[in-house]
């Protein structure tokens, strides 16, 4: 029976085109109607080192990288050595016999002289990766014309290369027809459906535009730079302004200045940049100015492993910065979630007038994934509370209200003049006698978080109704946890899961209810110290079982499944 889901891993030297070979194939299949999930990893250096690209594509929704790989495309011996152990039984090895000499094993081998084809047949060595793309398309039943458009748009700016690349594509495609297909993987031609395919950074940019963000300031950093680059391109046509700042301190400073002046504004960075933004996070809290920070987390501390994944910045998002101030922390679980949750981040920042930290990560930012086309008309957009003409008669920027939310005037608004203070202040924003207002102002600021907490959407629970084991995750691991839990439930294990997106304020009631409903809680996360597990401990006085991975790669469903099984068995 032909299998309609394929996991493909391509590995090779950084700069050899491994990643774009995979990307063309992946996007091409997604645009033909398949579900898709990818992961990429590459060295921090511009040239050299080992890069690999992982694709899972199928006719049913795909939640994670999966376990193992059905197909390994080894561009070089290192790729073969690093990944052959992962190849599933009866899997497919595609390799260039001039560089890779596979030992025997329980797999199907397609030795294809890609190098020779590119160099000798095409006289275009750089097209090798596109030859691979064409070959994969042919082998697994993808219409090469679906890839043409992608290649055309990639080489729009370099038309001199376009023809050769298209030729490479079809050469690879034709070559696949010459070999005898021995594997069972076949994507049956589908219809193009109303789905989208994008990566996390694309989804964040799109969501931010829809949320009304019209000012962005940022400083380049992997893996967040795409957002700066996208918005720099898109903003002029929308009347927005994009600023490449001199550093991250300046970036968040300009964002807060822009927001003070009335524009929805954000910045995007990674760990090192967020560390530098710490002081301004507190100012946003004190002066009650909305702002959104995207943190595309990568492995820290310091420069760490700049192109590798880690969920290592939760602590900083929750607790970083001197003093106590309200903050919103949101972590999306998928590409689709990036789109909706960034809108939520803007809505919450604007409504509650404080900083919102949005925790994506390297895997999610660069993960291409299919999603349903959003019904954009149904999406609610929130704006900050503005003073009424009555309120402007004796305007108190920081009026003490039940909700903690005070109407915010904007420069050029008559009667609304005030000084936004980094100092403690009274209702007018005056700073002469701060101790008099300290307690009332502090509690007012935190009342906003109480209100926000009440207004949170409940995170859905899934899995067994009578679960004894509960899995609680956060961020980019949503899909992989879901897959593992579904596997476990299928196996008859009493497991359920919940995956809150808003982490601060946490939907305490729902998460608390979930925790009370199970006997054991497992918290899988991609960091060493169990940051989320400790946060749950601090909040609910529980001692969850931790599952931590911190090598710079995502979980596989099997890793989580095995942990569940272990807990079941030891219970």
């Amino acid at each position: 029976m032909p299998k309609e889901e394929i996991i493909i891993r391509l590995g090779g030297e950084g700069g050899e085109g491994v990643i774009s070979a995979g990307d063309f194939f992946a996007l091409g299949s997604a645009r033909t109607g398949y579900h898709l999930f990818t992961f990429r990893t590459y060295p921090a250096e511009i040239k050299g080192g080992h890069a690999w690209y992982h694709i899972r594509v199928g006719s049913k929704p795909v939640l994670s990288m999966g376990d193992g790989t059905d197909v390994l495309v080894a561009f070089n011996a290192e790729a073969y050595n690093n990944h052959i152990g992962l190849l599933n039984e009866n899997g497919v090895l595609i390799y260039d016999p001039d560089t890779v000499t596979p030992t025997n094993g329980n797999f199907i081998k397609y030795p294809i002289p890609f190098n020779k084809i590119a160099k000798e047949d095409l006289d275009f060595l750089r097209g090798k990766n596109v030859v691979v793309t064409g070959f994969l398309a042919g082998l697994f039943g993808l219409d090469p014309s679906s890839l043409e458009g992608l290649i055309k748009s990639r080489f729009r700016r370099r038309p001199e290369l376009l023809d050769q690349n298209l030729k490479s594509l079809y050469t690879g495609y034709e070559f696949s027809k010459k070999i005898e297909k021995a594997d069972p993987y076949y994507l049956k031609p589908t219809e193009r459906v109303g789905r989208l395919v994008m990566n996390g950074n694309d989804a964040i940019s799109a969501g931010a535009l829809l949320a009304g963000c019209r000012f962005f300031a940022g400083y380049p950093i992997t893996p967040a730079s795409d957002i700066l680059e996208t918005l720099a391109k898109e903003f002029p046509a929308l009347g927005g302004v994009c600023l490449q700042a001199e550093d991250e301190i300046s970036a968040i400073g300009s964002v807060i200045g822009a927001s003070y002046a009335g524009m929805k504004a954000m910045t995007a960075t990674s760990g090192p940049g967020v560390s530098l933004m710490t002081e301004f996070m507190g100012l946003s809290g004190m002066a009650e100015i909305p702002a959104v920070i995207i943190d595309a987390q990568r492995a820290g501390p310091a420069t760490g492993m700049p192109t590798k994944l880690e969920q290592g910045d939760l602590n900083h998002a929750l607790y970083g910065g001197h003093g106590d101030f309200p903050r919103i922390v949101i972590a999306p679980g998928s590409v689709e979630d990036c789109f909706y949750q960034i809108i939520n981040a803007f809505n919450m920042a604007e409504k509650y007038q404080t900083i919102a930290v949005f925790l994506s990560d390297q895997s999610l930012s660069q993960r291409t994934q299919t999603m349903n086309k959003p019904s954009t008309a149904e999406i609610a957009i929130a704006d900050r509370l503005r003073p009424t003409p009555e309120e402007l008669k004796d305007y108190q920027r920081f009026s003490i209200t039940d909700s903690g939310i005070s109407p915010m005037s904007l420069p050029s608004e008559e009667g609304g003049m005030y000084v936004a203070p980094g100092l403690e202040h009274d209702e007018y924003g005056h700073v002469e006698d701060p101790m008099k207002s300290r307690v009332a102002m502090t509690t007012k600021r935190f009342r906003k978080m109480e209100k926000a907490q009440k207004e949170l959407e409940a995170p859905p629970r899934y899995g067994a109704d009578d679960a004894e084991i509960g899995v609680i995750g956060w961020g980019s691991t949503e899909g992989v946890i879901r897959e593992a839990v579904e596997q476990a439930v299928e196996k008859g294990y009493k497991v359920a899961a919940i995956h809150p997106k808003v982490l601060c304020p946490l939907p305490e009631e729902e998460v608390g209810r979930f925790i009370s409903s199970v006997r054991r809680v497992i918290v899988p996360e991609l960091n060493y110290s169990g940051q989320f597990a400790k946060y749950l401990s601090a909040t609910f006085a529980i001692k969850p079982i931790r599952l931590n991975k911190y090598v710079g790669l995502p979980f596989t469903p099997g890793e989580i499944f095995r942990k569940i099984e272990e807990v079941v068995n030891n219970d």
Partner: protein
Amino acid sequence: MTEQLAQLTVKHYKSDQKPIWCPGCGDFAVLACTHRALTNLQLRPENVVIVSGIGCSSRIPYFCKTYGFHTLHGRTLPVATGVKLVNPDLTVLAMAGDGDLFSIGAGHMPHAAARNVSITCVCMNNQIYGLTKGQTSPTSVKGHTTKSTPYGSISQPMKPVLLALAYGATFVARGYSSKTHQLADLIAQGIKHKGFAFIEVNSPCTEFNNTYDLLDTMVEELPKDWDTRDRAGAMALASTETKVHLGLFYKEERPAYEEMAKAFEKNVNAFDANAYLARFA
């Protein structure tokens, strides 16, 4: 509303909060000159935003009845830049101390100037850290004995006007808090200037570094026939250590950042989410 336009007086720009500076502090004069400059230009107070950092000098927004933002130490210019870029119709002043602008904030001015964003940046230079009670600042003279340099400072003092020129600021001037007529005029000119305007004001700290007497002997007007287009000449003069020249050193017309940025905007439209998302279909 329009009838009021001609009637704005200094009191329209004065807030009801009393400055907390020490008697004789130069910042009083800078405040008064700012009020006067705004009055002279008859700017609507709600269209003015005064952004400051942290320091004695940076308390200035509280004493003005305009919009204001008392930010963080050193971050005056980044915040001011954000304000100006999203609403170029606002008059944006960035006012702060020598420590704020040239020590902790030293990395921002080169960029604000290179961008030529229309901000009037006023450095209230007292050659000392006032608010933290008297430590050496980046403009303190060599040998200056302060709390933090008990054996005398061993760093060369920075020259704000020279730096502004090297950074490519398109309006560079120096005033003195004792010469209020000139200072009010320079601030007004700076506000009218399109692009980044920098004004250094010698504004002594009576409490920790009273330099009035010394300054009185050192100040000198720029030569009558001074050519404000001569950047090299201005840099040479700004390097002098024996005199403190006052007036407009340099002025140049160069497109302002906010105008160049706006020039990219052709046919601004509302965001068409469906069309945008269709790119990913």
